[in-house]
């Protein structure tokens, strides 16, 4: 079977909220009076224990991300959580997937925080960059119509700050900084690997492919993921190279138990919380005007029609399984479904392996993570079932010598 790297990913949800059908959205307008910090204390520490456990179980990496003002994922500052995980681990790679660049007034703060984490960890950081969801443009009132411009300008500024000696002056449309001169600079050279998680906007996929950044599809049906990978491959071809499997990632939650029946019985309710409650989001929150181009919107609407894609909240458990939004079953079943991603789609990174979802209790998460590591991972690894960081393999997205365009 083909090779696959496995990244643990916890969203850190706050599950104690009213049912999806009773609220407008789990984001933006759901009152934070539902949040009990004593319960939050318990949850955060369980979630962080799970991230630390990923190293003991031999996962290739563990991931955190940035979301604001919602119950789906209570991680407004992913760098805080990454710092905690780094302090309690020695070797595992820590993916911040990612910092939402346009939602920050000064992107140098992101350059500084990620560089600090990279230096403290001795080069274990993967630096994902995202634009933030549409919902976060409602919450913050950063202008979604300038989101793409701000993202790429912030990206260019951060990469330059990490790779060119300072001080230098940055004169851009959105950022104007007289002395760019961050201390520290990153441990990894020329800079930490950059990943670009996305929802399928053509512009993001094209830019990711041109820059050889791993691109990740999040919570999408497998047919739509394939379409977006094909788009990535075409853009790579135009840039004169063939992408490696480590450039194509998919975020698909998995749950594995002794048998298929047991796995479904243990996982179903929690998975339904994620899709029917955690992802209860009206379209106007998802896609504020200007967040994507008209051209991208046309592509997405055509894709939705072609694959009959429903809103997350309307998907049944069976549809989530059939379209591989999630993978649930015995180790054999889960390995077979993952093999479709490696064999048919050519993907090389699985994010969300053994992930906690919804109101899944700690014991199930530990059991799921353990079984996944011991019974599923060996199907996709060289004999010995060692993680990439023990085998001495480069981090996916690490800048390779052949990355310079011919």
């Amino acid at each position, binding site marked *: 079977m083909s090779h696959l790297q496995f990244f643990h990913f916890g969203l850190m949800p706050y599950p104690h909220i009213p049912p999806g059908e009773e609220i407008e959205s789990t984001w*933006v307008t759901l009152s934070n009076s539902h949040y009990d910090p004593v319960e939050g204390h318990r949850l955060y520490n369980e979630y962080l224990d799970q991230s630390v456990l990923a190293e003991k179980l031999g996962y290739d990496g563990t991931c955190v991300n940035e979301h604001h003002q919602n119950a789906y994922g209570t991680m407004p500052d992913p760098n805080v959580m990454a710092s905690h995980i780094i302090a309690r681990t020695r070797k595992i790679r820590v993916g911040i997937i990612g910092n939402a660049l346009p939602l920050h007034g000064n992107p140098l703060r992101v350059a500084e925080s990620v560089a600090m984490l990279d230096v403290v960890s001795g080069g274990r950081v993967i630096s994902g960059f995202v634009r933030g969801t549409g919902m976060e*443009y*409602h919450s913050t*009132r*950063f*202008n*979604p*119509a*300038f989101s793409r411009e701000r993202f790429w300008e912030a990206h260019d500024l951060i990469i330059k700050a990490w790779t060119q000696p300072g001080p230098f002056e940055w004169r851009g449309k959105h950022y104007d900084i007289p002395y760019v001169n961050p201390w520290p600079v990153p441990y990894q050279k020329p800079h930490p690997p950059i990943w670009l998680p996305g929802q399928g906007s053509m512009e993001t996929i094209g830019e990711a492919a041109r820059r050889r950044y791993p691109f990740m599809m999040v919570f999408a049906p497998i047919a739509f993921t394939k379409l977006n990978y094909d788009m990535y491959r075409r853009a790579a071809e135009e840039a004169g190279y063939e992408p490696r499997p480590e450039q194509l990632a998919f975020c698909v939650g998995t749950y594995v138990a002794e048998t298929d029946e047991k796995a479904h019985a243990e996982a179903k309710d929690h998975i339904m919380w994620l899709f029917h409650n955690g992802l209860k989001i*009206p*379209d*106007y*929150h998802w*896609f*504020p*005007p*200007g967040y994507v181009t*008209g051209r991208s*919107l*046309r592509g997405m*609407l*055509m894709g939705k029609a072609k694959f009959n894609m429903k809103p997350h909240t309307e998907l049944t458990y069976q549809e989530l399984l059939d379209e591989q939004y999630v993978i649930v079953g015995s180790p054999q079943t889960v390995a077979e479904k993952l093999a479709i991603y490696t064999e048919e789609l050519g993907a090389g990174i699985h994010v969300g392996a053994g992930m906690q979802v919804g109101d899944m209790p700690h014991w199930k998460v530990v059991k799921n993570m353990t079984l996944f590591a011991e019974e599923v991972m060996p199907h996709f690894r060289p004999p010995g079932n060692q993680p990439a960081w023990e085998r001495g393999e480069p981090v996916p997205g690490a800048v390779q010598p052949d990355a310079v365009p011919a």
Partner: protein
Amino acid sequence: MSETASVADVPAQTIDVAGTPVALRRRGEGRPLLFLHGAGFTGRWLRFHEALAAGADVIAPEHPGFGATADQEWLEGFDDLVLHYDDVRGALGLDAPFDLVGYSLGGWIAAAYAVVYPERLRSLTLVVPAGLEPPVADPFAMLPEQLVATMFNDLANVGEVMVDPEDLDVAVHLYEEASTLARLVWNPRYDRKLERRLRRAACPALVVGAEHDRFAGDEQAERYAALLPAAHLERVPGTGHALVIEQPERTARVILDFIGGLA
């Protein structure tokens, strides 16, 4: 649709404005009246336009990024639109003071123009203008049917402006218009400096309010009327924020009576 709903179409013509192609419709005789549209109801000659054209030479350009005028890279804020509309004025040869009318978003643009170029105007008419305060309803956080329900108090004429949001081209065009709108008004959603600046627009002015505006808020029209040095407020009975569709002839009559009554 009622009999009165059928209006002869006026096709858009394109004029060059400082290198920017601008789509505009024009009909009627008399003094030139420049009409600035709101964030919707673009791409057509409305009953409201037709009713205005009974008493004026109505010139109705479409803002960059709306209707058939392409979006422009240079458009980032209201200051760009103020200069753009002075270029439009120049391109149209409106050298003598003219009558400026703006609806909703167009009212905000007209007010922003009037405080910069007060000497260009013979009169200023703001129809349920935005711009002094944020809208009481968040236009970017509504389903299309909620938006209609908030803007209209009288749904009798709504069919005249209904489009099919299931049509891919329509959906993309509406999203693109909303994207231009977002660039202008996402943040901030009003101009806090406008309140003090309105004293500069000293020409005769009319503010046309709805009977009950659940979109822009009823107080906004009153604030405009109070802050403009020579303005009075008239409300059109039975209407909401979409009064130019709900009561097109009556709204136009209020405006024409005002303009016609000037010395």
